[in-house]
């Protein structure tokens, strides 16, 4: 069979947006492979998330639902998903390359003894052979690869596919979450700070670097991010300021931080070291504000302003806020 499975990510009862991006990729593959798309979700209390999945354009939704799966367990979820994927005749299994996707999909692929590519930016199926494109060497090269083993598992970089909104009302079948011995299980989720927009899901990332001179000047960065409106922009940082202890590591963008590809990335007081660029070069539009006209960041920026951040950023924040408020 040539069905394509999407492993959906549900947190706090809500379907995560990158899962809908995976649905888009799955529908594309299923069209080429002649199969159907089945979405599988794990958790406890999945009705709302499954309703969203059922109207996304998939052909079938499988909810592995029950108290035993109230908390994420990589081994528990992987085993249940692998069984369902086998039963569904999976030729391909897709999931978003999120914290959960990185933790879960490789284990599912091991249980299915399949092929796996991670952090894919494009997927394909030609003549029944699945393939993918993915950045390697921190984005300094792009690999085009094809599966030599089935099933083909792929995790997809967030913000690379449009979120599916296919409509329809797929059948939802419920499976009881198996009570069993779990090897690793989440016992607590601690929110980091406020209900901030996750860096990798943000539509706009505003990052600051050593050019801001002092940690408290990150207020400029936070204000600009806030000007885009609630839930739109996230704050990022260069490693220089993370190492200096100005910002937490979770905000670091780059080779040894997070890889982001938002529609808009704004680098402020960041020189553009190769390791930083590795984390943001796939952003659709890059804006750089730097007082040094020769800073390497300008080589990859679509739009640059040469100038003092302390002068330019407040003016930009004001202009953005005015536009956003009048929308």
């Amino acid at each position, binding site marked *: 069979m040539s069905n394509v499975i999407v492993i959906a990510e549900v947190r706090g009862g809500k379907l995560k947006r990158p899962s809908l991006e995976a649905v888009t990729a799955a529908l594309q593959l299923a069209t080429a492979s002649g199969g159907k798309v089945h979405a599988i979700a794990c958790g406890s209390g999945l009705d709302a998330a499954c309703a969203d999945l059922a109207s996304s354009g998939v052909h079938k939704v499988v909810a592995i639902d029950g108290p035993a799966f109230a908390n994420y367990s990589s081994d528990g979820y992987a085993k249940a998903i692998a069984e369902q994927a086998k039963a569904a005749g999976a030729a391909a299994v897709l999931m978003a390359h999120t914290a959960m996707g990185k933790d879960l999909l490789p284990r599912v692929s091991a249980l299915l003894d399949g092929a796996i590519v991670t952090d894919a930016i494009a997927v394909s199926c030609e003549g029944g052979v699945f393939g993918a494109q993915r*950045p390697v060497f921190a984005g300094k090269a792009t690999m085009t690869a094809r599966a030599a083993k089935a099933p083909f598992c792929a995790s997809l970089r967030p913000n690379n596919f449009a979120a599916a909104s296919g409509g329809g009302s797929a059948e939802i079948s419920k499976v009881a979450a198996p009570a069993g011995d779990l090897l690793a*299980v989440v016992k607590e989720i601690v929110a980091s700070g406020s209900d901030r927009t996750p860096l990798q899901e943000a539509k706009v990332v505003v990052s600051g670097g050593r050019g801001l001179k002092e940690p408290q000047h990150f207020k400029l960065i936070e204000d600009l991010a806030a000007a885009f409106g609630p839930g739109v922009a996230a704050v990022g940082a260069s490693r220089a300021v993370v190492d200096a202890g100005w910002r937490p590591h979770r905000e670091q963008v780059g080779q040894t931080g997070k890889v982001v590809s938002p529609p808009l990335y704004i680098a402020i007081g960041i020189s553009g070291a190769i390791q930083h660029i590795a984390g943001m070069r796939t952003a659709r539009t890059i804006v750089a504000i730097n007082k040094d006209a020769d800073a390497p960041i300008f080589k990859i920026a679509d739009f640059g302003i*040469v100038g003092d951040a302390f002068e330019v950023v407040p003016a930009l924040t004001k202009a953005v806020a005015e536009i956003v408020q009048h929308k």
Partner: protein
Amino acid sequence: MDIVVCIKRVPATDAAIKIAADGKSIDPAGVQFELNAYDEFALEQALRIKDQLGAGSVTVVTIGPKEAQKELRDALARGADKAVLLTTDQWVYDGASTAAALAAWIKTTPCQLVLCGRQAVDSDNNQLPANLAGRLGFACVTEAGKLTLDNGTFTAERDIEGAREVVSARTPAVISCQKGLNEPRYANLKGIMAAKKKPFEESPAQLGAPAVEIVSLALPPARAAGRIVGEGAAAVPALIAALREAKLL
């Protein structure tokens, strides 16, 4: 506790990458290689656990080229007890076949804990540890930024989107290590001398056919040339206009 640390020799993060004539690999000429940065956290954590328990062993293993002797020797000099080099002359990029070969080797050796880096910075896979754990039937936590062991169980913390997950698990386990877990030590002269007498095994890796084949490796398309819209705060209106035109505002 017997700990296995999986390490990889990779190009330095600031290396310029050129594609080889076959169009499927990189041209190694002029490229500096080093121990994968995240694997340093894995090694350091293993050494700390052994110190803390005052017992057990730390074995470093890699599937890689003969040249990886250098990184393994460095690990021995930092304090690992034993090194194992499973040789291959191919670039190791395929997570599934690599995990299968490592799992087969780990089954032959006493091991209650496998520590890995979160990601090898050449293939950028971020998949081997969880894949390996699946094959071994071990518990797994990836991208751990904090780890506390307690007699057969452990607690690990990992960053997720907008929050931190606290995971409770038990050994045997595979844990992949994120930056922030510890500050790696470097080898000192005494360590380097001691390393010379430590066991070092070398044999060909039993790698099956890759589950994923490389069709091509290419430099990414260069970003279209950008432009400086102006200088200082006076340039803000021009930037806003450009962003509106690009439908970003």
